[in-house]
């Protein structure tokens, strides 16, 4: 095992350990804000995994969108709907058992399936496109047989409608919009 | 526009509140308001105003002469206070060290928080009332200038001195007059008449800066040496006691 491979392995197992522990914290911690921090850890580890897989661009996007956007939105949701002293009530025993059984069942099934399947692996060191970001851009806007321009447009429509829908839903119906100008998170459509 | 220009106002109507008719003038819209301007003009003007502000501040930055900070303990010798600075109250004295104050009590009456206490005595030579002791309490003074405005004899002024830090609050009670005795007017009048001047001047007895009756009802403070006092309990005790 050469040093580069050794580093790769160590980093993989280290990140995996951190991210599994953090993921367990996300689903079990009683204080919801701490769960959000754990979620941020999982997602950062995810970016690390993508770098290990040589998808630096996706890792950057993961950090940008997940940590810079989604986690902050979730933190906002926590701030707006609970206080520091609030702790979540433990789920009932039956619900917990159901959750454990179903998730472990899924895990076991999937692992058995993976073990028994022989995937058509590509060559050990096949060539990766030199510039992943450039290639992704070509794919996203390509309208040939391997292009994704239609999904891309649909995603942008989805984002737009999500933004507008969020504004409409989050607006306080009891107040007129002119009264909201003093509130930072609700004025001028900044609810996104 | 902070005022209503009645000439320009085109609308005026009368409304009644109860039975009282009230003239209501509807103020015209400000001609420089945003409504009468195009958006571009507004943007241009506001951006320009930003640059005006930045020009002012860079002007201060590049001209060290605009700095107003005084490096106080270092420049103690050359420090010059400003004309209107109110440091400590002082009695105006002429070159012979005679003062204008005749103890008329106007300043004491004018003082809003009783920082000035004046005691008078009758001069044995000309039987006139004159200043015996002018007490000024810096610790309760608000430097409001009411005493200077009230003084009919132009006897008070503000000095530059601002270094009044002491370890004992009692030291903030000053006797402003250097002597108890006739004001400069009385002396000059006596000089003109050649009328017992020497005798009049002989009635002046010196006063020390901290020589007044001890405030705080004469209590002693631990660790502070007792003030030097005169035995003037009978006739010179302050009025508020």
């Amino acid at each position, binding site marked *: 095992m050469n040093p580069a491979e050794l580093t790769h392995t160590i980093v993989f197992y280290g990140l995996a350990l951190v991210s599994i522990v953090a993921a367990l914290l996300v689903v079990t911690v009683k204080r919801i804000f701490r769960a959000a921090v754990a979620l941020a850890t999982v997602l950062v580890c995810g970016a690390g995994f993508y770098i290990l897989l040589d998808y630096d661009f996706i890792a950057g996007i993961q950090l940008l969108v997940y940590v810079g956007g989604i986690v902050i939105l979730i933190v906002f949701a926590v701030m707006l709907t609970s206080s520091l002293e609030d702790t979540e009530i433990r789920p009932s025993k039956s619900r917990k058992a159901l959750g454990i059984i179903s998730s472990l069942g899924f895990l076991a099934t999937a692992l058995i399936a993976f073990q028994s399947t022989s995937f058509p692996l590509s060559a050990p060191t096949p060539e990766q496109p030199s510039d992943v970001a450039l290639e992704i851009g070509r794919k996203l806007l390509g309208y040939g047989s391997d292009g994704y321009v239609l999904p891309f447009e649909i995603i942008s429509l989805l984002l737009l409608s999500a933004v507008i829908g969020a504004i409409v839903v989050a607006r306080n119906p009891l107040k007129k919009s002119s009264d909201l100008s003093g509130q930072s998170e609700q*004025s001028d459509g900044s609810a996104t | 526009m902070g005022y209503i220009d009645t000439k320009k106002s085109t609308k005026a109507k009368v409304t009644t509140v109860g039975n009282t008719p009230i003239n209501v003038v509807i103020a015209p819209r400000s001609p420089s308001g945003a409504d009468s301007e195009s958006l571009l003009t507004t943007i241009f003007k506001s951006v320009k105003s930003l640059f005006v502000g930045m020009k002012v501040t860079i002007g201060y930055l590049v001209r060290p002469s605009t700095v*107003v*900070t005084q490096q106080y303990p270092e420049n103690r010798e050359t420090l010059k206070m400003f004309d209107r600075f109110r440091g400590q109250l002082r009695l105006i004295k002429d070159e012979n060290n005679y003062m204008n104050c005749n103890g008329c009590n106007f300043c004491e009456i004018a003082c809003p928080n009783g920082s000035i206490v004046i005691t008078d005595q009758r001069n044995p030579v000309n039987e006139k009332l004159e200043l015996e002791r002018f007490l000024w309490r810096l610790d309760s003074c608000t430097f409001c200038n009411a005493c200077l405005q009230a003084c009919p004899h132009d006897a008070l002024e503000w000095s530059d001195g601002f270094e009044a830090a002491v370890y004992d609050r009692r030291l903030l009670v000053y006797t402003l007059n250097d002597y108890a005795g006739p004001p400069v007017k009385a002396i000059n009048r006596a000089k003109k008449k050649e009328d017992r001047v020497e005798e009049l001047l002989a009635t002046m007895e010196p006063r020390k800066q901290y020589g007044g009756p001890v405030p705080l009802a004469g209590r002693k403070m631990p660790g502070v040496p007792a003030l030097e006092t005169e035995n003037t309990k009978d006739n010179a005790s302050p009025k508020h006691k």
Partner: protein
Amino acid sequence: MLENLLTHSAFEILTLSDRAAQALAENPWEAAGYTLLALGGTGAFLSLLGMALIYVERKVAAHFQCRLGPMRVGWHGMLQSIADALKLLQKEDIIPEKADKLLFFLAPVFSIIATVLALIIIPMSPSLQVVDLNIGVIFISAVGGFGVLGILLAGWSSNNKWSLLGAMRAGAQFISYEISVTLSLLVITLLAGSLQLSEIVQSQQDGWWIWRGHIVGVVAFFVFIISSTAELNRPPFDLPEAESELTGGFHTEYSGLRFSFFFLAEFINMFIASALGATLFFGGWMPFHIGGFETFNSIMDLIPPGLWFAGKTAFIVFLMMWVRWTFPRLRVDQLMRLEWKFLLPVGFINLFAAATIVLTKLYFFPGQ
């Protein structure tokens, strides 16, 4: 040697991570040494730069306001920052009774980590850069998220209403202005055709983008400066810590070392924003070049690249300080209106204009 210096190819990029990777194959200890140098160097640079910036800010602020600023400790108060740091270290470390102690402890760490992560990819000179990521521009706007996460954590875990309000303002402000910053970064990415910071610098060999991209570059620069000032929570956009309304905002409950972390991160972030602005719009360490005038360019090359970078960054830092000490603080609704009704449309139009310019090669010196 001289001929080498006088040609553009003299700018060979060699980052610390490159050196470490090269050394890893032959001598792991050398690689470890480079890693240690990168870590220690970044740490030392961070603290020294923070103290220097705080001193400069105080001096500049004082002279903008007809004052002198710190004058007592050292010559013209040069050692004031060190004295302040010593004072902060000695202060009692207070954690509020009802605070969420774990998160309270984590918040400043998040802030400083974001700062360090952003600092390591700034190209300060051809040979002075810790890591040269090929997604540099995305990375730098991504790690900004950690910083604001730290602020949100601080506000929440303090269990104090002022902190919470300040943190929520910071979050709203960051998310809003992040869009404008990204839009103006995208303009330069379009012009330079790369996300890698060193390549963006090298794409400005014939001239800096702010004048090569003429109107588009200038507009993007102003949008970038305004919105990054807002992202840094610096006045006139300092609503998250508006003293007169929220006492100290998100760091109301912090004291001593933890507070100094926030303070340091704030000033280093100002440096990072300025360095990024210098790199993207003023060519980073690239000397002032005009395409075609080789003699002029080689004269300009005599000034070392590090000095060019320092000078440009210092200029933008000064610009930010100038703005800070001139304008009054905005209201929350004015802040949001500025972003959503003005900067955002301007940014989008500018991006379209940039795309058009790149397609038609209307910018100066489109050769190469």
